[in-house]
């Protein structure tokens, strides 16, 4: 008997296995790509579409290079800070070139809001040995009136047989804002279309330094606990150039600045030029019944603007079978108002234009609020191509307006939003 000659076939297979022509020379061992598409909509207000492309390159020397690209498109309107009242109001757009009217009992919205943001975040991860890992990254983010540059680094130390990880993170950011219509003067009064608007300079900047200290501890084979402390100090321009405060007269209605054009009296806001935020974050994750995962976290944040907030977030990954899961999600966010938050300014008490030492803002994001999120995610993992889809509903309950003047402005309008997110590995 003679054996079949398989030399040539095996030789071909071995050359393919060694990938001699390309892959074994390549310094990249493996690549991972992940894409996310997110739709966000606040009825009658902002809607946004965001696409994220995240790529990771695992190098032969065990380094990991990452590149994340994010593109956002926002359209719609956001609350300008002016009060809702029982008469029509007229305002000038931020550019100073147009005007818009808000009907009685409607929230004044600046509806010229449209922007596209593109952001690039490269990163480099190196595991120095079984204990130390470092990540160095940067982000450049550009939109029409905003440029943000940042650099970050994270060092983690793995000890106690991988049961405890200490993390230290630092981020430095430099932001430049050059808004449509230039930088408003603090407490400058909004002027009619065509008139000289109270502006000072075309752009301004802010620098931010962030520190993160974290400990992750594996408790047992099924659970882990994480505690993070973070501090964020920023210096520079903190105002929102598009936010104003209504000037309210004795009748509880906004003063009319110009009886001919009907322009409402509104002044531009002014916030402190520095902010120090600190927060504590606790997270607990537990494997339930060998297949489900409970993930609960709580964050406490406070700053030197007088804002304190609490966030409670709970997710439960319920495994339906080997390849799919359902994950309900609930979050409650509660925040107190900033010291200088005020829904409006009483006529005669407004600081003079350029009073940089006085602070006031009617931005609802600095006011008292409670936000509720509920959501449900369905995902397929452990399959050829993992993917997930999530639907979330958000309701923001703003506090009653304190010090309602003349009884007309008693309640701010609640904001709700719907979010749909699709995520896939490819």
């Amino acid at each position, binding site marked *: 008997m*003679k*054996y*079949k*000659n*398989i*030399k040539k*076939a*095996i*030789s071909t*297979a*071995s*050359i*393919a*296995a*060694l*990938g*001699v022509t390309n*892959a*074994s*020379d390549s310094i990249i*061992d*493996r690549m991972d790509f992940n894409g996310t598409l997110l739709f966000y909509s606040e009825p009658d207000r902002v809607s946004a579409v965001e696409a994220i492309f995240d790529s990771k390159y*695992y190098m*032969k020397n*065990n380094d990991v290079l990452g590149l994340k690209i994010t593109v956002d498109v926002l359209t719609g309107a956001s609350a300008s800070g002016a009060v809702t009242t029982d008469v029509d109001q007229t305002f000038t757009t931020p550019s100073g070139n147009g005007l818009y009217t808000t009907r009685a009992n409607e929230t004044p919205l600046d509806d010229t809001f449209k922007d596209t943001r593109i952001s690039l975040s490269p990163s480099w991860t190196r595991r120095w*040995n079984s204990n130390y890992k470092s990540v160095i990254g940067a982000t450049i983010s550009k939109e029409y009136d905003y440029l943000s540059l940042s650099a970050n680094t994270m060092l983690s130390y793995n000890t106690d047989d991988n049961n405890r990880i200490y993390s230290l993170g630092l981020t430095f950011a430099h932001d430049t804002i050059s808004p449509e219509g230039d930088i408003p003067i603090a407490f400058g009064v909004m002027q009619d279309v065509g008139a000289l608007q109270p502006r000072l300079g075309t752009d301004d900047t802010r620098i931010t330094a962030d520190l993160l200290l974290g400990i992750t501890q594996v408790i047992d084979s099924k659970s882990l606990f994480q505690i993070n402390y973070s501090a964020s100090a920023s210096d520079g321009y903190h105002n929102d150039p598009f936010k104003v405060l209504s000037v309210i007269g004795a009748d509880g209605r906004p003063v009319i600045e110009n009886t001919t054009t009907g322009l409402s009296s509104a002044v531009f806001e002014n916030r402190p030029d520095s902010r120090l935020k600190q927060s504590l974050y606790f997270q607990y994750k537990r494997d339930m019944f060998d297949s489900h995962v409970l993930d609960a976290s709580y964050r406490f944040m406070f700053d030197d603007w007088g804002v304190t907030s609490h966030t409670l977030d709970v997710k439960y990954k319920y495994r339906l079978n*080997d390849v799919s899961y359902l994950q309900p999600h609930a979050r409650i966010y509660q925040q107190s108002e900033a010291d200088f938050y005020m829904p409006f300014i009483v006529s005669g008490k407004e600081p003079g234009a350029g009073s940089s030492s006085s602070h006031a803002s009617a931005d609802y994001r600095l006011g008292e609020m409670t936000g509720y999120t509920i959501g449900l995610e369905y995902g397929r993992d*452990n*399959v*050829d191509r993992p993917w997930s889809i999530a639907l979330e509903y958000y309701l923001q309950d703003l506090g009653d307006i304190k010090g309602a003047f003349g009884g007309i402005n008693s309640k701010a309008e609640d904001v709700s939003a719907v979010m749909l997110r699709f995520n896939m590995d490819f």
Partner: protein
Amino acid sequence: MNRTRELKYRRTTEEFVGSFHAMASPCEVLIQSSSESDARKITDLVCGEAARIEMKYSRYRDDNLVSKIHQHQPVRVDTETARLLDFADTAYSLSDKRFDISSGILRKLWSFTESAKVPSRAQLKLLLPYIGWDKISWDGAIISVPEGMEIDFGGFAKEYAVDSALNLVGSSFEHPVLVNFGGDLAANKPPISRDTWSVGVRKVSNSSKTASFKFKSGAIATSGNRYRYIYHKGKKLSHILNPQTGWPVSNAPVSVSVAMNNCLQAGLFSTLASLLGKDAEQFLTDQEVEHWVQR
């Protein structure tokens, strides 16, 4: 990566020799260069690559790809692993199912130590349904290993590491280099100082001649280990197991060495020859490959 491994260097009249221990074997790198610094860099590269492959494909770790595959869920593998699984797949079909990377679980019943016992037919009958590459789902990207089954890259990981390390060296250095991992070896080009590399193979019994291979470049792989056998009913049983019967191959040669272009295919042919027992020589002759069989 090399910090935990002890690297040793010595200098002979013609070359630098770097040595270390990896993949349960003594490993050597012969470098024909006048630069000691290059020689050290090359040894570092080779040692690093051996460590990488050992870590990635060892079945004794709980944090690598193999352990993930053994969780019995579909796993999408990286391109390197995909190429190796494709190779295993081709080898399985071309060898009439004799080369089978799912046969590693036979070691649960067979251990070739002095005190080892021979498993019963009943024990083997229970285990055999869990062997067979054709029961494993592999589509070129995703592998799914059924419950109770395992795969083992041990049948060719060392040979693959030899080739891969040599390729890595070749991408940065021009020096003639020979990589030898526990008797599986490959050289990128002929040495400068003489016509051929010369590698001796230990004589295993009085009846066989001492073999000495002379080769310019390419690879030599050897299958067989004279210390690994047990006695059963007066017969010496080899450690070469037939995956279809779960029983040692009868009349297996003590050692089979095969010379080919790369170590991966040389290793496969020496293993296949051993699995054929008394037909080992005829098989290799029919394959028209250079070989040395010791009995």
